[in-house]
């Protein structure tokens, strides 16, 4: 009895309820689509069909099954995403730090940071490609550019959220600027920094997939657009949609776990409530 209550009280349980509800709704619509469309898998396939396509050992090109193909391409995309993400984080944090140290830099740079997010990726891609002369490098660079804004914006917000009283307190201790940052500013902006990380982790992955579509080669985006363009079964497209969503969510949680490990105070706070 106690166990049942423990299960029904856990957050995971409710997430499962939502997932179950979502699956039911999906299947109702998939059934409806199956009745009215001639190529239901292009609009909304049954989930069983998607699972089948993953487990099936039918080769869809000369040498690979759908699953092998998705995994091979995912490896390429995710490694580019990871490299871009790390570069993006480093740049974002350093920029936020510089902006917080110098109001002038903030005023000059921040509008342009935002601007970089606004420039459509397609416009940047050929230029970055022309500079790097290598599509793989440009893919990493673009993934980095697209991910660093949330980190920079959130971290800066964290620096700013430090209360004036705390500032004055540190001042009264006659703390140096270095002490001010290492003892107070940086620790207190960490939650904000992690918010930025959590937002940008899935973004790094989606950006990496988006950039894949720029040119052929290995990558989930290439595979996705090929499937969409009818070069192979549409189930590969659905496999990638689900795979990328799952990986995106896992990346979010992964960062959450790191945050909990690094910042035990957060855990305490939540328990206290």
């Amino acid at each position: 009895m106690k166990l049942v209550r423990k299960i029904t009280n856990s957050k995971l349980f409710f997430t499962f309820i939502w997932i179950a509800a979502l699956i039911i709704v999906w299947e109702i619509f998939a059934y409806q689509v199956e009745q009215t469309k001639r190529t239901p898998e292009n609009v909304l396939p049954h989930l069983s069909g998607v699972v089948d396509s993953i487990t099936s050992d039918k080769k869809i090109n000369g040498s690979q099954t759908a699953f092998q193909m998705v995994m091979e391409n995912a490896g390429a995309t995710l490694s580019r995403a990871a490299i871009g993400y790390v570069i993006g984080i480093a740049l974002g944090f350093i920029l936020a730090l510089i902006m917080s140290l110098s109001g002038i830099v903030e005023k000059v740079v921040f509008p342009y940071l935002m601007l970089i997010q606004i420039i459509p990726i397609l416009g940047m891609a050929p230029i970055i490609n022309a500079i790097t002369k290598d599509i793989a490098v440009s893919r990493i660079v673009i993934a980095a550019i697209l991910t660093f804004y949330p980190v920079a914006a959130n971290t800066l917000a964290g620096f700013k959220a430090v209360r004036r009283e705390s500032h004055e307190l540190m001042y009264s201790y006659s703390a140096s600027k270095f002490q001010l940052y290492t003892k107070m500013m940086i620790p207190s902006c960490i939650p904000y920094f992690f918010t930025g990380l959590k937002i940008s982790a899935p973004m790094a992955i989606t950006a990496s997939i988006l950039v894949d579509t720029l040119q052929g080669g290995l990558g989930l985006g290439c595979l996705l657009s090929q499937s969409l363009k009818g070069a192979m079964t549409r189930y590969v497209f659905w496999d990638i949609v689900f795979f990328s969503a799952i990986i995106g969510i896992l990346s979010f949680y992964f960062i959450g776990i790191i945050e909990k490990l690094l910042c035990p105070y957060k855990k305490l706070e939540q328990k206290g409530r």
Partner: protein
Amino acid sequence: MRLSKKALAVLITAAMITSAMSACSSSSSSTDASSTASSSSASSSSSAEGATADGDRIIAAAKDGKVGNWGLGNEYEIFALLTKYGQENKFISQAFDMDGFDDGSITLASAMTYNELGLVKNSYEGGYGYGDKVGIIDMNDEGVAMLEDNLFCTKESAQKNPNTVKAFIAASMKGWKYACENPEEAAKIVYEAGSSVSSDHQAYMASEVKKLCETDTKGNKVSDYGKMDEAAMQQTLDLAKKYIKLDDSAAADKLKNLTLDDIRNTSYWEDAMKESFDKPEKTDVSIQLKWLPQAQFMGYFVANAKGYYKDVGLNVNIVSGGGDIGETTAVNNGTVDFGVTWVSNLISANAGGMNLLEISQVYQRSGLVLVYKK
């Protein structure tokens, strides 16, 4: 009128969102709405069935706004055709599958003879199985054909590495010849080279591509693979000048004054056919395709697999296309050495300021058709 349409769009979105918010309870009602909508579109498409002549069919579809094309530089022949029948140059954006054609939202859909048409007609995997229940309007018959898949590089690299260019053409055309003589084997070679197009469709594609390589726009047989037919090239350029609309006035001016000599040079191909070239200056070269690897480009895959490139001292890397860094851009910025594109795309690229040069014309006629349900 326009305002009310937008209001309608907003209203529909809002209604959809609220219904989605109230989750499962509304699911039955919204599916009802979708099924009635699809049945009404089916009835409206049947009204066009009365028309028989191609002209009437084009006019009817254009008036309904149901002519489809992929756009992105593939639409000029459709514009020429619409103009021929006095219709406004407008099309709706067609996805890369034929679902829009299948569900009736597009009544005249663009299709390449070697690709989409096969999917519509045949019933192998990914096909729609219409068989003889569809008819086609051929751009060649309508006199609005523009040449498609060619072979090009930059003017600069052609001047700098003439022997590489000639060797590449010679080996490629040998590959094309072999592929057209043995389309089934060619299809298999492409499939094994990593193309994920199903082998059935690949075989169909090879047989259709063979026709495009060996027949000209007038229907005559062509035996020289890669030949640049003067008249067909000129027709392509003339139509391009008329239907490529460029917002950049400098580029538009340049387009108006382009001549065939600005976009192609036949001497490389002629020398290649006579096999009069020396050792290539550059041995590692790459070619970017216009689209995904498939039998559309079988000549290059065959030349690679059969060792024709090795025979002339080249090491060739075939780069897949179909992304947003187009083949013209990739060749122009030097990421790849050669490219396959449509002549019209090369024309607009040169008008925009690139320096590209066609060195061979693989497809001798247009592969674009409009497909309709009979």
